[in-house]
């Protein structure tokens, strides 16, 4: 009897709670914007970004959105875009697709942003794709090099910026064939689409390795795992090691190699994702002697290159608007994406709509000024951003100098399929005066 009565009460309570839940839900999320396009008013444009601000993936990447915001603030202080000020809503996804999905819902449905900019992570962007597509929200300059995102059919409103990992591997393969023929090369890579994209690229380039060592993302902090990498490298007899991992993995590999007495015995070649010297220096100071002389692929200028006009201008803005953050590759990435966004918004004209924004990128995007050395490939049929890399030697001070000497950049360009790798010289649009686009 008692059992029966309490369940009945339970059902009643459940009913009340459920109705209450919906009553709460029924409250309007936000007042409607009286402009023809979502997220745009006569004097504002609202943009959104999702990045890991907390959790193990946060370090380094958590600087990107604030650098971007600093650049927008700078533009706003100089008149904004066609009289509109840009605001950036920053959401933490802790590098979890579940959270990315729910904060993206918030950005699109509650904050009602006009567009997403620089959203980070391959799986995280995948998780939000369907909804972003359904709503037709422009997703500009995603912070991942997964080649899939350049597929304009599958991701019609998504625009890649980074050269793909596939391209990077192909370029690196031809670089290895050119400069390290006859060497015994081992590969350490992250065992997901990031690494697999690269593996496919190396396969296309015909590169052969004496050892291929996969690691599960997140396992690179475990000493046992690092120990295994090093024994495998030593066992393979490799004299050259290519690393396709995040910064923590690169640092762990270099640190582990130092501990195993491999300093000076191996030529390290680092993929762009994990090659930010500032980050590696903080992660593993002991790795410094190994970092010195390592070769890294990059598509942006080195943050330490004070002679580069983009770096110089971004450093100035960073000093004034970014609350004392150290200028590193992550800050450059944030500012660079910010500047591209401003040009895209300008190009879309005063009567700003999502469709016009995307059309503007497709028609004029390839001419936008940006810090990247490789040309931008956006067009009606392709959403590929940069398509090439240069190789530089890292110094103990965290600098990165082109192999042929300071200022002598040699660019390797290619595509995400079977196209050849070509060497090119740098032809980059000049930095707009004071870093303010006038397109």
């Amino acid at each position: 009897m008692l059992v029966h009565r309490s369940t009945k009460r339970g059902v009643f309570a459940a009913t009340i709670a459920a109705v209450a839940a919906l009553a709460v839900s029924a409250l309007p999320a936000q007042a409607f914007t009286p402009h023809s396009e979502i997220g745009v008013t006569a004097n504002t444009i609202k943009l959104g970004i999702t990045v890991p601000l907390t959790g193990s993936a946060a370090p380094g990447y958590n600087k990107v959105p604030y650098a971007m915001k600093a650049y927008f603030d700078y533009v706003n202080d100089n008149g904004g875009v066609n009289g509109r000020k840009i605001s950036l809503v920053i959401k933490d996804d802790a590098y979890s697709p579940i959270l990315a999905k729910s904060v993206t819902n918030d950005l699109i449905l509650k904050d009602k942003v006009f567009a997403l900019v620089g959203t980070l992570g391959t799986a995280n962007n995948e998780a939000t794709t369907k909804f972003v597509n359904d709503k037709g929200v422009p997703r500009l300059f995603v912070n991942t090099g997964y080649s899939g995102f350049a597929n304009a059919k599958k991701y019609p409103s998504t625009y890649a910026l980074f050269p793909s990992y596939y391209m990077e591997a192909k370029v690196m393969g031809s670089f290895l064939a050119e400069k390290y023929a006859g060497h015994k090369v081992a590969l350490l890579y992250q065992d997901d689409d990031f690494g697999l994209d690269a593996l496919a690229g190396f396969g296309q380039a015909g590169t052969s390795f004496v050892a291929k060592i996969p690691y599960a993302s997140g396992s690179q902090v475990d000493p046992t795992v690092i120990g295994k990498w090093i024994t495998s490298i030593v066992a393979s007899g490799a004299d050259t090691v290519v690393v396709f991992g995040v910064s923590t993995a690169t640092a762990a590999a270099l640190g582990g190699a130092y501990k195993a007495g491999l300093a000076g015995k191996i030529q390290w070649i680092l993929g762009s994702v994990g090659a930010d010297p500032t980050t590696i220096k903080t992660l593993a100071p002991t790795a410094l002697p190994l970092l010195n002389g390592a070769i890294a692929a990059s598509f942006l200028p080195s943050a330490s290159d004070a002679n580069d006009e983009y770096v110089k201008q971004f450093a100035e803005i960073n000093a004034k608007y970014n609350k004392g953050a150290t200028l590193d590759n992550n800050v450059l990435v944030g500012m660079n994406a910010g500047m591209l966004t401003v040009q895209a918004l300008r190009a879309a004209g005063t009567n700003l709509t999502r469709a016009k924004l995307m059309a503007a990128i497709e028609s004029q995007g390839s001419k936008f000024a940006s810090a990247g050395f490789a040309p931008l490939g956006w067009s009606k049929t392709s959403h590929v951003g940069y398509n090439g890399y240069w190789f530089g030697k890292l110094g103990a001070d965290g600098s990165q100098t082109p192999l042929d000497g300071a200022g002598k950049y040699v660019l390797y360009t290619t595509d995400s399929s079977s196209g050849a790798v070509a060497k090119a010289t740098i032809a980059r649009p000049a930095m707009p005066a004071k870093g303010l686009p006038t397109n």
Partner: protein
Amino acid sequence: MLILDTLLIGLSSGAIYALMALALVLVWRSTRVVNFAQAGQAILSTYIGYEVMNRTHSYWISIPFAIIAGGAIAAFIDAVIMRALAKRSHKGSVAEIAPVIATLGMLGLIRSLTGAIWGNEYLQYTSPVSGKGYLIGGHTIPFSPQNTVIVVGALLVMGVFAVIFKFTNLGLALRAASFQPEISRLAGIRVDRIRTIGWAFAGSAGAVAGALVTPTSYLSPNSLDLLLVSGFVAAVIGGLDSLIGAVLGGLILGVGFAFILQYIGTSVTFSAAFIILIVVLFVRPRGILGSKVGRRDA
């Protein structure tokens, strides 16, 4: 050679797991609580050690401060949170999971707190002891002076607490209070205070773990996350009640893990601990040194 290297890799990381397992066993022994906040507490005490090191420029001076801080943090958690919890939810089906939840909450709290104070950046807490492996006959073995420090640290923590538990009145009171709190009270033992001391001991042991392990990598609010699970698994393998078991559990986990990675492959990295645990528990459901009533083997 590879087998020997793998063994050494396993032993050096096993010692790290062992240190964390020791702290978990200490809390379990004194309060019958599995403390999920342990890794978080160790992080916080290590941050305090980091601050001291920044001011004194000495790793060695910072360690005792970290240990004291670790003890104080743990004592605070017990006196303020666990005591209130024991009073309010000692009965019913929540009784078993309430402490688990509370310590998980503490873990989150400490993580957010350290993040809010020091940021989510990676910081360096460096030891003057070399992390470079010993050179033996032209071969650098994967075992370094810092690994030696960790192993010695683990053995020292185990030894000190074994002596305390076995030979002192405080140890006797700790054991009595954990096994039979009410009878202990009737014997005149201030059980609340004793439990807090037990937490403080565990916090100090965890602080030792944090201070010795962090120099092998870096310091961030999440940097000991991996130890949360592997330390716990090591403690369970060892039987939860036994200090020697914790050390053995750590070493078994470390060595087992190293061999699995070396000879089966890295794709089972995250599953390896689970596999080892299942194998051990299948043979001995109460861990290798856990006995039926959780006895006094130190």
